[in-house]
């Protein structure tokens, strides 16, 4: 008896061990898979703050993510334009940057030379703008030595001295506020090696001889989110000078909003008719809806492009548009053909018991009031999902905006605007700006997803539950 009890006890312990181990491995696997799938997105988000996201070898962290540098950037921003957050270079500025060099024994210490170069920030779309150059207003004071201590440096522990110099840049008199103050500090000789500075330089040029700062007074946010600011400020419309990225974001919001309205209207009305009303040709109609989901867009876009070009046989000239190409109404017309939501609403209406409607019918209510007062309020959960998912669909829509919205840049939506970014900045290797733009454009749907996860996940499992 006791032997079997001991056996049972032993077995229970065995099982418990395995339960714990199994759960542990389950979480380990789940975490690994999450990291794998989220990896590219997270890595891109971390890299989007780097000055050069193609720096080799790639790292997860960058100087931009170090709080000590935020503090230095805020101090310099305050000195440059009394703006600790976003920095700049304004009249009255008195910017002090300290740089430390290593002078090996036997070498004469000599002060580096500092210059404010006349450098245009980035290329691409920013190149057409008129900008003020800090170089035209800045005065560089003679470089002074502020400290000196003995020490060893480098892998071979070379003996020598660390000498710290202060570079002072001022903005005397009046003038415009300039967005950034670039600075190049050139070491006196190759033997004297740059070690550190108040704010890390953007890059070391000419084999470490020149410490080059893209903006030496960035402000804390300007330092961390420099690429993000460039997304908004650098790409500007040729005609109005507005920020293109702002326009694209606004356009995408407007497009997504109206797309949701159109989808809701068409899907509920058509879905209701297909689910509830009996009329000749109903089955044919339903087959057509199913068929419309399967035909590739490439078959339809040729004719649809021409129809839009001619303003739907001149119909659009009624409201003063000769063509519907390059216009939001055109985009809304052509994307109104979306059979999926019709199908979903039809399914949903069929799940509402007829009796509910029949009680309303007794009162002699019209079809419209039966639809709008009885059925539609009951469909609220389905409508919620439809709103969220069609907003996301419109926000991410690529093909039709690409075909319909071509010129000028001002009318584009975010996805095709990002394509402009790729064409303009990708070829010059300026990926910081592209990644920042991509992450920014993804933010609204990611927030939407986090808030309304349930709707999205139901969408996936609904796909799986079909058939």
């Amino acid at each position, binding site marked *: 008896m006791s032997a079997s009890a001991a056996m049972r006890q032993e077995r229970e312990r065995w099982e418990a061990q395995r339960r714990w181990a199994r759960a542990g491995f389950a979480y380990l696997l789940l975490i690994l898979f999450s990291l794998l799938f989220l990896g590219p997105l997270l890595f891109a988000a971390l890299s989007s703050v780097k000055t050069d996201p193609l720096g080799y070898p790639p790292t997860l962290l960058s100087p931009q993510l170090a709080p000590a540098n935020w503090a230095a950037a805020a101090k310099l921003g305050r000195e440059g334009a009394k703006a600790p957050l976003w920095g700049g270079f304004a009249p009255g500025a008195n910017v002090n940057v300290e740089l430390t060099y290593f002078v090996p024994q036997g070498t004469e210490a000599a002060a580096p030379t500092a210059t404010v170069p006349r450098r245009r920030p980035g290329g691409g779309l920013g190149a057409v703008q008129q900008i003020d150059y800090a170089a035209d207003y800045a005065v560089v004071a003679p470089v002074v030595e502020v400290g000196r201590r003995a020490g060893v440096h480098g892998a071979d522990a070379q003996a020598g001295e660390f000498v710290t110099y202060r570079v002072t840049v001022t903005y005397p008199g009046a003038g415009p506020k300039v967005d950034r103050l670039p600075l190049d500090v050139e070491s006196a000789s190759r033997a004297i090696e740059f070690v550190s500075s108040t704010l890390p330089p953007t890059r070391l040029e000419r084999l470490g001889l020149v410490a080059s700062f893209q903006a030496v007074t960035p402000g804390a946010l300007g330092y961390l989110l420099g690429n993000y600011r460039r997304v908004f400020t650098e790409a500007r419309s040729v005609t109005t000078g507005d920020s293109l990225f702002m326009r694209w974001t606004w356009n995408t919001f407007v497009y997504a909003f109206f797309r949701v309205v159109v989808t809701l209207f068409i899907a509920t009305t058509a879905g209701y008719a297909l689910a509830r009303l009996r009329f000749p040709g109903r089955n044919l109609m339903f087959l057509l809806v199913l068929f419309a989901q399967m035909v590739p867009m490439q078959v339809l876009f040729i004719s649809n492009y021409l129809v839009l070009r001619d303003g739907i046989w001149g119909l659009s000239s009624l409201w003063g548009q000769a063509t519907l190409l390059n216009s939001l109404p055109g985009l809304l017309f052509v994307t109104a*053909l979306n059979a999926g939501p019709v199908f979903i609403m039809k399914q949903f209406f069929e799940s509402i018991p007829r009796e509910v409607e029949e009680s309303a019918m007794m009162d002699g209510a019209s*079809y419209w009031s039966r639809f709008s007062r009885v059925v539609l309020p009951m469909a609220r959960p389905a409508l919620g999902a439809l709103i969220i998912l069609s907003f996301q669909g419109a926000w991410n829509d690529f093909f039709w905006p690409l075909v319909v919205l071509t010129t000028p840049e001002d009318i584009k939506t*975010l996805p095709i605007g990002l394509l402009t970014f790729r064409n303009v900045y990708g070829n010059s290797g300026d990926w910081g700006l592209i990644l920042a733009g991509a992450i920014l454009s993804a933010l609204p749907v990611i927030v939407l997803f986090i808030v309304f996860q349930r709707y999205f996940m139901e969408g996936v499992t609904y796909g799986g539950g079909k058939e």
Partner: protein
Amino acid sequence: MRARGREFLPALMFLLPFLLVLAVFFVYAGVRAVYFSFTDYDLFNAPQWVGLANYRALFSDDRFLTALRNSLLFAAIVTTFQTIGALLSASAVNRRVRGMTFFRSAFYMPAVTSSVVITLIFLWLFQRLGGINYLITAVSRNAPIILTFVIVMVLAQGLQVVVERWRLRRRLRGAGQQRTVSLLDPALLAVALVAAIIVTTALALLGYLAPREVQNVAINWLQTRQEVPASFPFWLRVPLPLAAIMFQNIFTTIPTYMLMFLAAMQDVPRSQYEAAALDGANSVQQFFYVTVPALQPVTFLVVTLGLIGTLQMFDQVAIFGSSVPLQSVITLAYFVYNRMFPGAQLPEVGFASAAAMFLALLTLIIVTLQRTVLRAEGER
């Protein structure tokens, strides 16, 4: 019958918005595409009827044949890998644990962002100095360490399983209990994992294990017409930029399909696995004889969606755009667009329409074929 007539007018009113859109942008567009495909039309001169000439010309057009080859290879390879990948990863994470909802959302999150965002990120990763090449370099540099880790873990696990089986057999002799130690026994695996970590770290600290000296990998994934090297099987020999798009597509579609599989897996009754276990089926056998058959309907759906999605792949080609040679990535869908908007040349509307019709037909045939084959497979 009376109801039918009475409801005709209201039905028409309700359907009118949708009907108008359907008529103009679907029926009319479809009919016109068919018509255009039999004509020679450049948007400026009136269409000229040319019969089947466009369709014949398709098959002597080098660009079209390249696009066709790319599309077919893309569809076959991507659908295969994404389906198998999704199925395997779903069964790996198919655990009934707390917080599953959180992880499912985490898996799905990249899929809610736009194709442009994801493609741009991958375009960046595939640069010559980008993350993918670095990852390859890092793995090949640390190969000795990784290999040692794996070998130690496998050995430790094998040893433990043998010992445990022997001990169990001795202890259970005559006790009338049926119990066995599986090869992937989680408790033993945890011990093996710890052992592998300790041994590898110790060897590395003692200086017996060090990363290899290897050159930085700098594969040119994008600006090239080069194909995957000949050491790969012939059906994988695609242009490198297309391989990059394939990798991206497989990687980014797996989570979505994996969630579909996962939802279906959680519906498979536990009793089926228990019955199989009683019959002595190990976890691999359970996977092939219980899980796979039960998932047949979802597999069906996943393959269909995968085939349609891959055969009509357009976005990535358009987004890679000028950063890759067109012929290395062109697909049928992009071919149609390219002939319609050829930039400086005259659009070839008729030719583009014929290619579009071909694409639609190809999709239809392949999907039908797949459904017939899979259905027959399921009934066997």
